[in-house]
C-alpha cells in the first residue's frame, strides 16, 4: 500500500477551480504534500479523507484562511492568490465553518450582510431585508428563522443557514462546507441536504468535507479523496464507488489493521460507576459502569455533555445530584487532586489550552500529574525517574529531548502521547480521555490506540470520549451513548455501526416530532409505540412511549436485545405493515418503515397492542408515512 498509486481520474466537467500540488507544513507536521483537486459549477463535490488526511487544511487554503507553501490554484481560469479569507470571499469563494464565524450579538440580518456593514455610505435596511428574504426564499427556508433574532439564540443548524445566506449575499460561486453535519441531528442533516441540492441546481459549486460515508453517498456527485496529505482519487463520480472502495481509498489499508483486536466487552469487576449524575447545565442524567481492563466509549454529538461528564467525574465540576462509586464506595471529588490521588487520570480535549504548560520542559509536563498528587512540600521528582525512563522508551521519545524547553515543538501526536504518559506515570486505575486523537495524524493515532489497549490490558479502566464513531467502534468494547446530557444506551460495539450510533446520538430535542407521533399512537391505541432499527436479528430501540403488561414489547429506549429476547420475536422477524400476532396470541405488533422525504431510511415505527382485536393498520401506517415525509 505504501507505493503511491496514480490518482484515479474521473471524467471532468469544465472546472471552476483547479488546485495543483498544494503543500503545507505546520512546524514539523506535513499537513499537505502535493494535494490536487478540481471543483466544477453545479456539483456537490465530496472532499474525503480520514482524520488528519489534510482535507480541512486544503479547504482552508482554498478559502483563504491559510496560505499554501507551494502549489497553484486556478480560479475561473486565472491564478488565485487570496492572502486572507476576505480576499477569497470577494473572489467568490466562501466557507461554512464548523465553528461559525458569525457575530453572536448581532441579528440574523446584520450577520448576513456583515461584509456590507463595513462599507461606507448609508445602510438601506429595508432593501437589505428584502434581499435577505429573497436569499432565504431561494434556499427554500423562507420562514425558517426570524431576521431580527440575535444569532446567539439560534441552534447550530440555524446558524449554519445564516452562514450559507451570508455566502450567497456576497455572491459566492464556490461554497465549502467543512464537516457541516458534525453537530446536526438526522432531521437537520436532511434539511441541510435540501438546501445544498437547491444551491447545486442554481449552478453553485459546493465542496462537502466529511468523513461520514453515508452522507457522502447521499449528497455528492463526485469525490476527491486525500490520504496523508496527497490526493489518491480525484473527481471520481460517486455513483461508480461503493463504501468498501471508498474506505480503502481513505485509509489505504484494511480497517482491521489500525483497530486490531477489539477488547472484550466488560468482564472485569466494576471500578467506576456513575449513577444518575447531574451537573447542570450540560449533564442531566448520566449512568454507566466502567469495568477493570475495558475501554468504554462515550459517544454523542458535540454539546451532548460528554466532556462535562468526564470533568465532573474528575472533580473539575461540582456534582449537583447523583453519585459516583469507585470500587463500590461513594466517591465525590471536590478537586481534581482528590480524583488523581484516588487513581483517576484525565486527558482533556484541548491539548494546547487544557493540558500543556508551555513554559515547562517535557519532563516537568510529564510530572504535572505527579505534582498534583503529591502531598509533600518539595517536588519528589526523583522518585519517578525510573518510570519516566520506561515510559519514554515506550513512547519512542529520545531521552535527550526530554529537557527540551518547549513542548510545542513536538507534533500534535507526540504532544498527546506525552500528555497520556503524564497519567500513566501515576499508574492510574481509571483513565478518562476526551477526544484523544483530535488533530493527530493517522500514524500516531494507531500508536495511541495501541497505548490505550496496552494500558487496558494491564487492568486500567479506560473511558474514551470521541466524536469519531468509527474510532469508538474500533477501539471500544462497549459504548455508552449520550444525547442532550442524558445517557440513553449502553451497548456492546459488536452490535453497533456508525449509522446506528448516529441515530442514537441524535439530540432528543430534535425528535420532538417522532416523540409526539409515538405519544399519539400509544394513547389512541392503549399500546406501546416505539421507534427502532432492525438489523442482524436485533432491535435497536431509539425511543419508546407507553405500554405495560400485555402491551409491553419487552425492550425500552437504548436497549438492543436480540429478537428472541423480546416479547415480540415473531413480529420483529417479519416486519410488515400489518399487525403480526405472536404465536402465544398475547401481543400483536405493527411495524411501519420510517423514510424521510429524501428516501433516507430512518428505521421502523412500531406499535404493540394486546392480542385480541388490533385496530386497522392502514390508517396508522399512513399517518407514520405522512409524518416522516414532511421535512423533519
Amino acid at each position, binding site marked *: 500500500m505504501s507505493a503511491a498509486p496514480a490518482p484515479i481520474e474521473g471524467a471532468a466537467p469544465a472546472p471552476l477551480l483547479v488546485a495543483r500540488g498544494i503543500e503545507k507544513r505546520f512546524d514539523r507536521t506535513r499537513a499537505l504534500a502535493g494535494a490536487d483537486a478540481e471543483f466544477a459549477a453545479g456539483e456537490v463535490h465530496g472532499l474525503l479523507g480520514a482524520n488528519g488526511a489534510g482535507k480541512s487544511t486544503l479547504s482552508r487554503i482554498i478559502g483563504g484562511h491559510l496560505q499554501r507553501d507551494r502549489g497553484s490554484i486556478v480560479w475561473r481560469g486565472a491564478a488565485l492568490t487570496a492572502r486572507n479569507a476576505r480576499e477569497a470571499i470577494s473572489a467568490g469563494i466562501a466557507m461554512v465553518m464548523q465553528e461559525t464565524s458569525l457575530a453572536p450579538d448581532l441579528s440574523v440580518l446584520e450577520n448576513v450582510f456583515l461584509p456590507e456593514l463595513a462599507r461606507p455610505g448609508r445602510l438601506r435596511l429595508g432593501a437589505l431585508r428584502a434581499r435577505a428574504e429573497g436569499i432565504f426564499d431561494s434556499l427554500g427556508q423562507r420562514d425558517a428563522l426570524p431576521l431580527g433574532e440575535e444569532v446567539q439564540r439560534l441552534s447550530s443548524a440555524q446558524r449554519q443557514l445564516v452562514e450559507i445566506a451570508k455566502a450567497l449575499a456576497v455572491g459566492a460561486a464556490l461554497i465549502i462546507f467543512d464537516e457541516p453535519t458534525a453537530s446536526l441531528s438526522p432531521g437537520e442533516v436532511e434539511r441541510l441536504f435540501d438546501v445544498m441540492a437547491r444551491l447545486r441546481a442554481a449552478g453553485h459549486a459546493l465542496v462537502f468535507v466529511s468523513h461520514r460515508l453515508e452522507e457522502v453517498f447521499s449528497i455528492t456527485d463526485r469525490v476527491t479523496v486525500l490520504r496523508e496529505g496527497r490526493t489518491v482519487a480525484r473527481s471520481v463520480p460517486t455513483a461508480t464507488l461503493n463504501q468498501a472502495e471508498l474506505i480503502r481509498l481513505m485509509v489505504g489499508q484494511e480497517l482491521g489493521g489500525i483497530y486490531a483486536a477489539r477488547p472484550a466487552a466488560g468482564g472485569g469487576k466494576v471500578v467506576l460507576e456513575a449513577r444518575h449524575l447531574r451537573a447542570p447545565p450540560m449533564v442531566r442524567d448520566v449512568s454507566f459502569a466502567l469495568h477493570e481492563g475495558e475501554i468504554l466509549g462515550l459517544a454523542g454529538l458535540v454539546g451532548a455533555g460528554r466532556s462535562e461528564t468526564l470533568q465532573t467525574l474528575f472533580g473539575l465540576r461540582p456534582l449537583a445530584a447523583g453519585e459516583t462509586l469507585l470500587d463500590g464506595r461513594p466517591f465525590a471529588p471536590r478537586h481534581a*487532586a482528590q480524583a488523581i490521588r484516588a487513581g483517576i487520570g484525565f486527558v482533556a480535549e484541548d491539548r*494546547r489550552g487544557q*493540558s500543556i*504548560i508551555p513554559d515547562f520542559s517535557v519532563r516537568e509536563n510529564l510530572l*504535572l*500529574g505527579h*505534582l498534583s498528587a503529591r502531598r509533600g512540600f*518539595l517536588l519528589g521528582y526523583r522518585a519517578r525517574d525510573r518510570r519516566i525512563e520506561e515510559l519514554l522508551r515506550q513512547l519512542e521519545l529520545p531521552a535527550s529531548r526530554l529537557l527540551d524547553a518547549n513542548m510545542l515543538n513536538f507534533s500534535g501526536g507526540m504532544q498527546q502521547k506525552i500528555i497520556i504518559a503524564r497519567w500513566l506515570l501515576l499508574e492510574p486505575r481509571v483513565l478518562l480521555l476526551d477526544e484523544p486523537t483530535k488533530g493527530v495524524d493517522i500514524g500516531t493515532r494507531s500508536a495511541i490506540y495501541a497505548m490505550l489497549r496496552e494500558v487496558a490490558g494491564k487492568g486500567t479502566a479506560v473511558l474514551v470520549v470521541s466524536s469519531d464513531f468509527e474510532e469508538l467502534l474500533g477501539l471500544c468494547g462497549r459504548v455508552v451513548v449520550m444525547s442532550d446530557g442524558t445517557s440513553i444506551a449502553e451497548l456492546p460495539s459488536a452490535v453497533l455501526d456508525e449509522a446506528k450510533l448516529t441515530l442514537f446520538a441524535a439530540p432528543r430535542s430534535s425528535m420532538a416530532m417522532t416523540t409526539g407521533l409515538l405519544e399519539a399512537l400509544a394513547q389512541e391505541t392503549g399500546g406501546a409505540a416505539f421507534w427502532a432499527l432492525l438489523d442482524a436479528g436485533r432491535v435497536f430501540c431509539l425511543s419508546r412511549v407507553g405500554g405495560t403488561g400485555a402491551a409491553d414489547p419487552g425492550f425500552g429506549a437504548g436497549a438492543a436485545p436480540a429478537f428472541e429476547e423480546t416479547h415480540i420475536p415473531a413480529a420483529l422477524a417479519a416486519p410488515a405493515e400489518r399487525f403480526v400476532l405472536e404465536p402465544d396470541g398475547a401481543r400483536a405488533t405493527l411495524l411501519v418503515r420510517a423514510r424521510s422525504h429524501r428516501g433516507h431510511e430512518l428505521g421502523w415505527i412500531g406499535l404493540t397492542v394486546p392480542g385480541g382485536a388490533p385496530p386497522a393498520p392502514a390508517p396508522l401506517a399512513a399517518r407514520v408515512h405522512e409524518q416522516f415525509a414532511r421535512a423533519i
Partner: protein
Amino acid sequence: MSQTLAQTFSIRRLGARLELRMLALALLVFVALSFASPYFLRTNNLLNLLDQSVVTGITAIGMTFVVLTGGIDLSVGSVLGFTGVLMGQTIHAGGWSAGFGLSVDLTIALGIAVAVLAGAAIGLFSGVLVARFGLASFVVTLGVMAIGRSLAYIVSGQNAIADIPPQINGLVYTSVFGVPSNVATLLVLYVLAWCYLTLTKGGRTIYAIGSNREAARTAGLAVLGYSILPYVLSGVTAAIAGVLLSAQILSIDPLAGTALELDAIAAVVIGGASLYGGRGSILGTLIGVLIMVMIRNGLNLLGVSPFWQGSAIGGIIIAAVLAERLLSTRVRA
C-alpha cells in the same frame, strides 16, 4: 535535587536563558563603569551599591512572584509607606515614649510584626479579589495603592514619624560575615525565594499557573491558593523593605515608597520575566535590580544630571522587553 540542579545548569539551557543575557549586560555595565569612573570600584562604593539595592530588591522578590502568575502589584509602594507608618506608631505607642514598660527591643519586634502582618493582610485582600473574584490585578492593586497611601497619611497624622529608637539600627549595620545585615537580609531572602520557586511544589505551581492557568487547574494543581499567595508575599516583602528603610534613616514618612512599584516592576522585567506570566526567575530579578542601581550610581558618579536617569532606566526596560519578544521562539496563542 541533583537532577533539578543539573537541569538548571545544563549548558544548552544556559545559552537560551534571558537572565544570563542580562547577567552579561550587568557585567558589561559593571566593567564600563569601572573604566569610566575611578570611584566606581572602591569598596565603599560597591557596598553603597548593595545598600541602595535593598529596598527595591526586597520589594522586587514579591513582585516576581506576582508577575510569574501573570499579575502585577502596583500597591507595593503604598504598602511600604503604610506598614512603615504602622510600625512607627506601634513602637511609639508601645513603650518608647508612652512608657508601657516593654523593653525597647521587644517594642521594636512588636512593631515589625505588626508591619509584616499588615503587609500580609493587604496582600491577602488583593489576592482574593484577583484570584477568587477574577478582577484584573492592575485595577485591584491600583485601588489598594490609593487606599494604602491615604491610610498612611491618616495613621501618621500627615507627619513623618521621626522618633524611632536608634536600637533598630542593628537591623542595618550589624556585620554578618563582613556584610551589613540589611544586605545580608536581601541575599538570604533571595536564596529562600530561589529555593521556593525551584524546588517546591508551590513554586512550580506558581510557574504553571502563569504559563497556562487552565492546564494547571485541569491537572489538579491548587490554582486558587497559589494565585493568592504571591500577593501575600508581595505585601510581606514590601513591609520588610519598609522596616529596613526606616531602620536605616530612623524615621518614616507617609510618602515613603512613592514610585517604588515602578522600580520593582522594572527590575522584574529587566530580569527577563514575562508580564504574561510563566517565565522569569528570581535570579534574573536580582540582576535587574543591580543593573538599575549600577546605572543610577554610575550616572551620579559621572556627574550626569539625575534627570537623565529616568531615560536610561526606561530605555533599558524597553530594550529588555523587546529582546524578550524578538528572542522568544515561542508563539503565544
